[in-house]
């Protein structure tokens, strides 16, 4: 990999279009960077002559408050959009790690799936329209500012999750929903042997928490200090009535699971939840790799146990966040000695993909990341994806080699 000599931050869609058209003509490869919070996802570009910073394209363009619709430039920090929306009692469930830095465009392009998606859906489900600049400089709009629109293909959703390899998002329009008035967080230490029982209890509650995790490790990122090894964290969101009823149910469910005591946090509940999401991408220097696995809810315990066993086998330290409601598992493996880590992680990666073919790398500063199967096994429809890439970016100008199957 060659590092980009040039960094540019166009401030208008026009300027972005001209810049891409020029690179595409001259055979220059473009690495696209937003807030770089998800820089640990995907492969490094096989070549990069120019780094395109989207952060020059910043700001909310339209805030149609009475329509519950908002539009932002792609480089806008997620936090800016969320603060504006919260001030008017609305939100979009981006659930992006490090929202102060994360951009709207980057979060969409990476197809980020947050822990509250089981109740609110993904950010993808809120996208109403978009403006994209294709590799040849073409500016194309899709969708619009209305909440229902079936005029033509859903191009915006195709661009979401395309990792910048089909085009560069310049703008996205979202529908918003009312922000739940209250939030409450439950925190409980959880002895190892009660994990399965507690998770089952939580995932079958009649009033579902908007997020629930079983966490092992990640102390620095989440608690800022040493705490109990295993712990449960559950977020309730809604009206006073909901909080009241759900609190009772949650306490007795945890009691049944043998959880000794539960701490309730009202002030700062959402912030504590956000720290967990931040932890998804927190790295331990160059000596950690974080995977995300997507088993179905009933299988997630088995997956956690399998990853733990593998980490033991390769003498790696393992930390886990189990998203109880969606079933996905975040596993950070590391070693205190970075030299030793380099040797172990490749063997671990091989073994992991044998049992969990779809495991993705979501965070890593490891210098030899390119040797890992960061996207897991290729998806069933990979050939069609390659053809799409060839149609949209025939010269492989955008993020070449970063995506699934070397796209």
């Amino acid at each position, binding site marked *: 990999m060659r590092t980009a000599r040039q960094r540019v931050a166009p401030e208008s869609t026009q300027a972005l279009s001209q810049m891409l058209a020029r690179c595409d003509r001259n055979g220059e490869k473009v690495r696209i960077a937003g807030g770089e919070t998800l820089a640990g996802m995907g492969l490094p570009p096989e070549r990069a002559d120019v780094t395109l910073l989207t952060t020059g394209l910043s700001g909310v363009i339209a805030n149609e408050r009475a329509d519950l619709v908002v539009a932002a430039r792609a480089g806008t920090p997620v936090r800016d959009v969320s603060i504006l929306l919260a001030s008017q009692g609305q939100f979009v469930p981006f659930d992006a790690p490090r929202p102060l830095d994360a951009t709207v465009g980057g979060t969409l392009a990476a197809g980020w799936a947050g822990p509250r998606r089981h109740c609110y859906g993904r950010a993808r489900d809120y996208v109403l329209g978009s403006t994209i600049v294709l590799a040849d400089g073409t500016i194309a709009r899709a969708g619009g500012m209305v909440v*229902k629109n079936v005029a033509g293909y859903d191009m915006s959703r195709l661009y979401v999750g395309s990792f910048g390899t089909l085009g560069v998002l310049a703008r996205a329009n979202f529908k918003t929903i009312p922000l739940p008035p209250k939030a409450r967080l439950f925190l409980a230490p959880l002895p190892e042997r009660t994990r399965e029982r507690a998770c089952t209890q939580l995932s079958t509650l009649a009033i579902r928490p908007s997020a629930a995790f079983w966490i092992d490790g990640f102390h620095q990122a989440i608690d800022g200090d040493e705490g109990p090894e295993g712990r449960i964290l559950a977020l309730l969101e809604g009206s006073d009535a909901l909080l009241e009823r759900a609190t009772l149910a949650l306490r007795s469910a945890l009691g049944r699971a043998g959880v000794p005591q539960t701490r309730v946090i009202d002030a700062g509940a959402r912030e504590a939840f956000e720290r967990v999401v931040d932890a998804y991408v927190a790295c331990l220097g160059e000596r950690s790799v974080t995977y995300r696995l997507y088993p179905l809810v009933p299988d997630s315990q088995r997956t956690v146990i399998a990853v733990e066993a593998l980490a033991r086998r390769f003498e790696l330290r393992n930390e886990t966040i189990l998203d109880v409601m969606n079933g996905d598992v975040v596993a950070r493996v590391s070693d205190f000695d970075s030299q030793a880590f380099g040797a172990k992680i490749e063997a671990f990666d091989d073994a992991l993909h044998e049992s969990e073919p779809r495991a993705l790398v979501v965070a890593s500063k490891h210098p030899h990341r390119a040797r890992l199967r960061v996207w897991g096994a290729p998806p*069933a429809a990979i050939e069609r994806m390659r053809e799409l890439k060839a149609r949209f970016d025939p010269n492989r100008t955008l993020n070449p080699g970063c995506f*699934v199957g070397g796209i």
Partner: protein
Amino acid sequence: MILLERLIEALGSDAVKAAPEDLAAYAFDAYTDGGTPSAIVLPGSTRDVSATVKIARDCGEPIVARGAGTGLCGGAVPTVGGVVLSFARMNRILEFDERNRRARVQPGVINLDLSRHAAASGLFYAPDPSSQQVSTLGGNIATNAGGPHCLSYGTTVNHVLGLEVVDAGGEVFSTSVEDAGYDLTAALVGSEGTLGIVTSAWLRLSELPESVRVSLAAFDDIDSASEAVSAVIAAGILPTALEMMDAVIVRAVEAAFHAGYPTEAAAVLLVENAGLREDVAAAQDAIESIVLQHAARSWRSAESRTERDALWAGRKGAAGATGRIAPNYYTQDVCVPRSKLPQALRAVEAAARANGITVGNVFHAGDGNLHPLLMYDRRDRRQVGAVVETGNEILQCAIELGGTISGEHGIGWEKREAMTRVYSTADLAAMARVRDVFDPAGALNPEKIFPRGARCPEVVPP
């Protein structure tokens, strides 16, 4: 004819139809104009679909997928002939995964049948087009269908987890929203049979709420009703459903169903809130006070399940009930920003009046998704012309208000030329790139979505 022989050889004579009365039966969907197919195939399996597509390709015949034919934009019409693939026999729920709240279905399953099946597990399938008693999940997926409950649950695309698809070459491939890579599921949903033929789908099921309340607000003028809708949304309240019907519709519905609608009202709002008991009560109260501030003459809540179902039956049967007003009706489908609803409705009224057409409005008000039903008599050329003109003016008005040319029914054959009114050549070219990947020869549902000349090859009838 070689096409028929080969189809019969591959699928058996029972699955292939080509008698004149069969061809006539599949000439139309719920849009006004039709075409003539070369053959009808009733596949029983993915393999049948794949074989049919290959044979049709060899014979140079296009393929038009068909669910129940309730589509309103000519999407299932074989405009240039070809083989119509009707999914009437692929109507099984293949897997029901209660624990993970999802089901795998064949495309011919009727929408309502899935919810009926899921009810025993406390689940339902949320997208509920008013045609749900007859329309198929395959058709719903292909049109990204909406419905009253999509206000709170989102449209079909939010509920599709993965697809099995037969492509234009007859090859089978599958997609999943959990897969790494491009979101092909999202590209296929709403593609109206032009990118692939859906042969099965994993769909998300939702939990039945613990409490449901339905209320009816009546107004003396349509302006107040639409302003009330805008005010509810602006107040940040999203009911589960928020539907509007005007006087023309209310009277027709009452005559047909005796649902308990106030026939002297100029407009009614049907409001549903579902969820936690306490939250439902609070939302009902908040909406009640907003509609009363907007001069509602009455606000009545259904007291029983029977009463609630009657109110919904009236709404869902509304279009059918218009048969009492005129022999035919044309449904326009546009979507505008929700704050523009009052302006949009005034424009609909003005357009209808100027063209001497009776209009009835019954629509998904909370989404800003208008459905003016334009009443006419097909045998009267003047009326037909006036309906076309009115529909066109409504389309233009929606565009000018910042809206779109279809909120949920699709572009199909009917609105393909209107695509250039909302999209630039570059916008359409981006869509055409996707089409070229999946169906380079244009053999899947030709003459749909793309305006004439927007993409190169389209299969021309032999």
